[in-house]
């Protein structure tokens, strides 16, 4: 089992910490994890992305080049990384900011209006965790419960009052994924991902 998740969006959308949340949740499930940010002198104010690798075996390279799942928080991220997704992979995209569907025919796609949902929860900052909720529901890489528990590790103490909002974000995302009814097909797809992938360094934007 090898999941290579690429989370991408604008700086400030909470990409890095959502990736970390995923890593912590998977760690709590007893899996091997690796998290790596894109870094660059221009990262600030521009795009941000991070890769999370989850595996039941030791991880060779933590770089996510051909993601099994792409979580795209904005248009440029979808444009840039859609071609890299592994055939048979998954794309979860933020339909609040992206007004096109992925064009790849060989991947599964789920649209999540993450910004609206997050605003509904009362905090647009939790949008990325809505996406994570959907991802966890579809892939079962970790349980929502473990992700919820991990929030305390990822959020600095002065942000712990936001834990309830983040929990709701995870749940809302999961609900949407369930409703999208893709779950069963996704589970089937997981089988083809169980191979090693190619590694290429992530270009800093």
């Amino acid at each position, binding site marked *: 089992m090898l999941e290579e998740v690429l989370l991408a969006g604008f700086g400030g959308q909470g990409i890095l910490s959502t990736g970390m949340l995923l890593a912590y949740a998977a760690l709590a499930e007893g899996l091997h994890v690796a998290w790596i940010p894109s870094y660059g*002198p221009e990262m*600030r*104010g*521009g795009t941000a992305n991070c890769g999370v690798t989850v595996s039941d075996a030791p991880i060779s390279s933590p770089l996510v080049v051909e993601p099994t799942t792409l979580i795209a928080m904005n248009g440029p991220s979808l444009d840039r990384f859609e071609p890299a997704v592994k055939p048979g992979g998954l794309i979860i995209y933020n339909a609040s900011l992206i007004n096109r569907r992925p064009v790849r025919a060989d991947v599964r796609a789920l649209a999540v209006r993450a910004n609206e949902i997050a605003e509904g929860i009362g905090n647009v900052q939790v949008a990325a965790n809505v996406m994570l909720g959907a991802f966890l529901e579809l892939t079962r890489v970790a349980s929502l419960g473990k992700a919820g528990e991990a929030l305390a590790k990822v959020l600095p103490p002065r942000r712990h009052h936001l834990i309830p909002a983040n929990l709701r974000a995870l749940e809302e995302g999961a609900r949407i994924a369930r409703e999208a009814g893709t779950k069963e097909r996704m589970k089937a797809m997981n089988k083809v991902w169980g191979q090693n992938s190619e590694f290429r360094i992530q270009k800093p934007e």
Partner: protein
Amino acid sequence: MKDEGGRRKAAVSWRRTRGLTDTPFHYCPGCSHGVIHRLVAEVLDELGVLEKTVGICPVGCAVFAYNYFNCDMIEAAHGRAPAVATGVKRVLPDRVVFTYQGDGDLAAIGTAEIVHAAARSERFTTIFVNNAVYGMTGGQMAPTTLLGQKTTTTPAGREVSVAGFPLKVAELMATLDGAVYVARVSVHSPKHILQAKRAIREAFKVQLDGLGFALVEVLSACPTNWGLAPPDALRWVEEKMIPVYPLGKFKVPEEIS
């Protein structure tokens, strides 16, 4: 919005200078580097020296300045721009040479190079961007970081007992006989921006007149690493930085004053 000769038609307009290329800046929203770039580029254009100018970029957020200034450019090693500029200017004394340097670049690793370029009275112009922080590498303390200021390497705020006192570059440079023009300006308001431009122009005039080394210290906002919204960052310049780094001309040669 390109210029292309339009300037004559509408001399009073405000528009992008020929001194800049078309490449958009990579700086963060509200970063003052952009304003300072524009001022330097405008002055070079207005003095008519773009074609004979060689600029030296620092290592710092302005590391890509070679993409922006519309003249020949050299990317120098961290802190060494004054030495590189010395090499260029000694070979090409009739060209206009400037360095553009941050406070990590000039006031930390490059201290010896700037002090000695000034002591030798090298005939180039230095634009010194003081944003009280290492911008590019993620907001570490700079020599110019204010006491109490929180940075990634002074998480509890800069303490005198550990990290000493902020370095006042303009004051220090002004003690050197070879530094003939030394000013400190700010770009936190339109009025100050216009003053800053005048100082930058004077600093280049000093060079064109062969009078010696000229340096303009520009107080600059780094909203990202200060953790402030851009308007708040400009206010921080005014309220926190200027009291420590007073604006003014510390040295002006008689010839141009």
